[in-house]
């Protein structure tokens, strides 16, 4: 992808994000958010993040091909457990990576 294209993506995403951040502060009093929309927005992060994590773990080559003997799956299960128990970013990242290296080592 060309550099120009990259900067185009950055600008579009950045301006869009700014518009969302400033939206209601700018429009205050002129438009109220429908209740259903604000209820739905609560579930956006959980749904999008899960939709990003699962395919990235299950298909390690990014091609949508299922691979047997994929060390990412047990490593992700361990990381999930750590994140659930400790809520600690650093531990989740550290132990998840350590688990991946360990499973790769065993598998190789």
């Amino acid at each position, binding site marked *: 992808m060309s550099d120009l294209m990259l900067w185009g993506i950055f600008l579009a995403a950045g301006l869009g994000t700014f518009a969302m951040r400033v939206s209601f502060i700018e429009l205050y009093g002129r438009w109220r958010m429908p209740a259903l929309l604000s209820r739905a927005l609560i579930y956006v992060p959980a749904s999008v993040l899960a939709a990003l994590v699962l395919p990235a773990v299950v298909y390690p080559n990014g091609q949508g091909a299922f691979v047997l003997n994929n060390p990412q799956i047990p490593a992700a299960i361990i990381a999930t457990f750590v994140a659930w128990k400790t809520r600690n970013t650093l531990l989740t*990242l550290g132990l998840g990576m350590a688990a991946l290296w360990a499973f790769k080592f065993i598998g190789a």
Partner: protein
Amino acid sequence: MQGVRTLMPLTPGVIPFGLVTGVMAIEMGMSPTTAMGMTLIFYSGSAQMVALQLLHSGALPLAIVLTALIINLRFVMYSASLAPHLHHLPRRWTWPVSYMLSDQSYALCTLRFASGELTGPFAHWFYAGTAFAMWLAWQLSVLAGVCLGASIPDTWSLSFAIPLSFLALLIPGLRNVPSLAAATVGGLIAVLAVKMPYNLGLVTASIGGVVAGVVTESLRKKPASHECASAAEGDAQ
């Protein structure tokens, strides 16, 4: 200054994300200028990592922008909830503090605004302090990652750190059954729909997950009275 101090304990949770983001950007062949430009323009860790992940898998530019914006839809919600406290300020205030709006500074301030602890003519200084401290912590940790980036060998399989970071964001946020349903449905659809063209699988999965969350919430609410329902809504915030 009070705001800066209140935010400090939250920075250790952010620094690893910043490091991973910086390292990944460099590993993917971005120049340090491009990587930092992206960080300054986005100022949104999860959207930035999503964009990197999608660039990595070769998604279309339009799909990348759309997905980053969907991830950031939550800011509309934050904006709505902070508006009563910030809308009266002039634009030279509201535009910069809007740009610096983050999950962390929102979480800190919304509690204090709501409890009435933060009122008066200087309340927005507290918010601005938390927002600026968060912004600085993020920019510096990405910069550190960018500097580290080139020295990390491929055999470390560091690209796995992106899904791990998402897990670290996702799992602590699953505090109730509807959000668990949203995550489960979103994840499953994404795995099944991975072959859909133009990265539509991700958009389909996100919408499916959100619908699952709202439906589960409604189903669980039915036996309860309306007062309970509105209390539950307060909790979810």
